[in-house]
């Protein structure tokens, strides 16, 4: 769905206040009764901010059949024109308030009716009120100066990072035809799913469409395919292989293939890697990582040579103690600097 995001058009938008719960009791949301006026500039800003964020940071999601959340039903009914937009947004605000715990910060639930081409859609954004200082030139009689005003009621600025977004669009008549994208840019790279659990599961009633372990395995396989098909130089192959194992073994819970490519691959190989990923249906943008299906492959580097030489090294040892140099005829010179503790 990401490639269609530039076509997203916002139709109407409503904002409800969802305060932070106080000790021992849930906070009641302060509900708006009608959609907010949406001048063209504000509409464009909202569209651009959300599509940019979703495009680079969102994960594909689907409704979880076992969820307790009312959102899947509300979204499905509203996209099927069986439920009013304002009523749905109020119920969503109530649902968000009840999913909040004492540790969750309050905020604003913005619900927008939108469309991507002919597909109807709904955007749910959880935003926090922001503060800022407005500076404005004041002229007229007297000496020229600037007025400075502290504003506590900002909702979304070009620098806003503290917000969560869910987008649902219906591409067909069946229930399964609803596509979802969810992102949470404020979530640390080390969080388990890349999205706050209360937002993804408790509130939206969703789960990730692609299981992190499966998509991580597919990424690894696609990478191996790319290496053998597109990288002839054995030294470069080895360097890339070490880079990918290092990336997958890191503490980060997400992988961004484009960032990886920029950081580790030569310019002529980056596009080729993206092609290899697309071929296997692996996202070329951020995806949640789980290495359990490729763990064994990540722990050790193994080199099999043409004339019966095999080298196996832990990832760290290979990085610290081995050097690689490509010779003529596609031969690789490997230098190992270490103490021999046993021979067989």
């Amino acid at each position, binding site marked *: 769905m990401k490639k269609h*995001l*530039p076509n997203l*058009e916002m139709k109407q938008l409503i904002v409800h206040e969802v305060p932070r719960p106080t000790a021992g009791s849930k906070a009641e949301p302060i509900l708006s009764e009608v959609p907010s006026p949406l001048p063209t500039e504000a509409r464009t800003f909202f569209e651009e901010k959300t599509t940019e964020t979703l495009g680079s940071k969102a994960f594909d999601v689907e409704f979880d059949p076992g969820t307790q959340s009312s959102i899947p039903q509300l979204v499905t009914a509203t996209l099927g024109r069986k439920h009013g937009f304002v009523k749905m947004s109020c119920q969503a605000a109530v649902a968000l308030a009840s999913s909040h715990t004492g540790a969750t910060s309050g905020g604003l639930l913005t619900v927008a009716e939108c469309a991507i081409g002919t597909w109807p859609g709904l955007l749910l954004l959880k935003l926090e009120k922001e503060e800022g200082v407005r500076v404005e030139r004041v002229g007229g009689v007297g000496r020229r100066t600037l007025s400075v005003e502290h504003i506590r009621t900002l909702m979304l600025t070009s620098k806003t990072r503290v917000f969560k977004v869910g987008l649902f669009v219906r591409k067909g008549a069946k229930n399964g035809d609803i596509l979802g994208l969810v992102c949470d840019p404020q979530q640390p790279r080390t969080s388990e799913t890349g999205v706050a659990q209360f937002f993804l599961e408790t509130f939206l009633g969703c789960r990730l469409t692609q299981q992190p372990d499966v998509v991580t395995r597919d990424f690894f396989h696609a990478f191996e395919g790319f290496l053998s098909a597109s990288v002839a130089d054995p030294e470069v192959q080895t360097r890339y292989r070490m880079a990918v194992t290092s990336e997958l073994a890191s503490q980060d819970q997400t992988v961004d293939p*484009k960032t990886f490519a920029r950081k580790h691959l030569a310019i002529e190989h*980056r*596009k080729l890697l993206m092609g290899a990923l697309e071929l296997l249906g692996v996202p070329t943008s951020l995806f949640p990582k789980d290495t359990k299906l490729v763990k064994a492959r990540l722990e050790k580097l193994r080199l099999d040579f043409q004339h019966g030489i095999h080298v196996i090294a832990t990832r760290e040892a290979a990085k610290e103690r081995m050097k690689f140099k490509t010779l003529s005829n596609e031969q690789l010179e490997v230098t190992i600097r270490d103490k021999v503790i046993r021979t067989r």
Partner: protein
Amino acid sequence: MSLVVEETLARYAEERPAFEASCRRVASLLEEHLQAVGLVPRVTWRTKDSDSLVKKMVRKDQAYDGVLDKAGVRVVLGYPDDADKVCEVIRHQFEVLDEDNKSEKLSADVFRYAGVHFLIADPDGRRAGGRALCCEVQVHKPGEALWASLSHDLTYKAPPGIPKATERAINRLAALTELIDLEATRVRRSLMQSEGASEANLLMTLEKHFFRMTACRYDERLSLILLRELSEALDEPVDQAACDAVDAFCRANHERLRFLFDRKQDAVRYPFLLQPETLFAFYLLAKDEFRLEQKWPQRLPASELQKLRNLWGAYA
């Protein structure tokens, strides 16, 4: 023909709004059809002034209904060699009642106005005084437009029996304007074939598609500078094959590009979008976004690339 001036003027005053609506509509449709094939010549319209109408009727001894240029549209081309394309669009898109290529009527040793005139039926079937309206469309190359404006003063106002030397001078001027069109065409073709003209060729390819999206004028010098710098990301020469590939890309993505241009024509927020090289940047984004970001022209802020990425859905 006996002319009752007051009656003629009264009838024309009554019918003139219909003629005005007719030529305004023809001009607007013509601009649309020309833009659809990537041409944005200057298109103007006018209804004949009342006094000119009466004077023409007297001068040519014509009846009111015999004056066929009461509604008139003029197309002045930027490039002389676009004339055939414009004429083809008129023939294809309008009901042509008559076509008059003035150059065909001139003998080999006479130089005069050589534009093409079309008489077309009102596209919406307007009528006035019980008759179907028609509109005259003149297609002028730049030199012909110059001659049309010069000749208005030089020949129409010339007294009868002008000296032979003056007539010869008028001929020389007419020949000169014809020469302007021929030389402009020749020089342009020669420039396009010369070494280092690759960016200009590419710009022509892009311009054709750009004008299908928007009629806005752009900064040509900036385009040539940016195309030269963006071409670094192509990693291959900007030859005819490259132009053809860009052309194919623009055709294949026409609807998508059109949508962007329709929605994002905000000159303040997207100044770069209103330049044809943006289409080339989209082509490069689709071809290899990594190479484009590495070779992105230093004179352009990185935020412009980010905006184009977001517009194209090639998120970083």
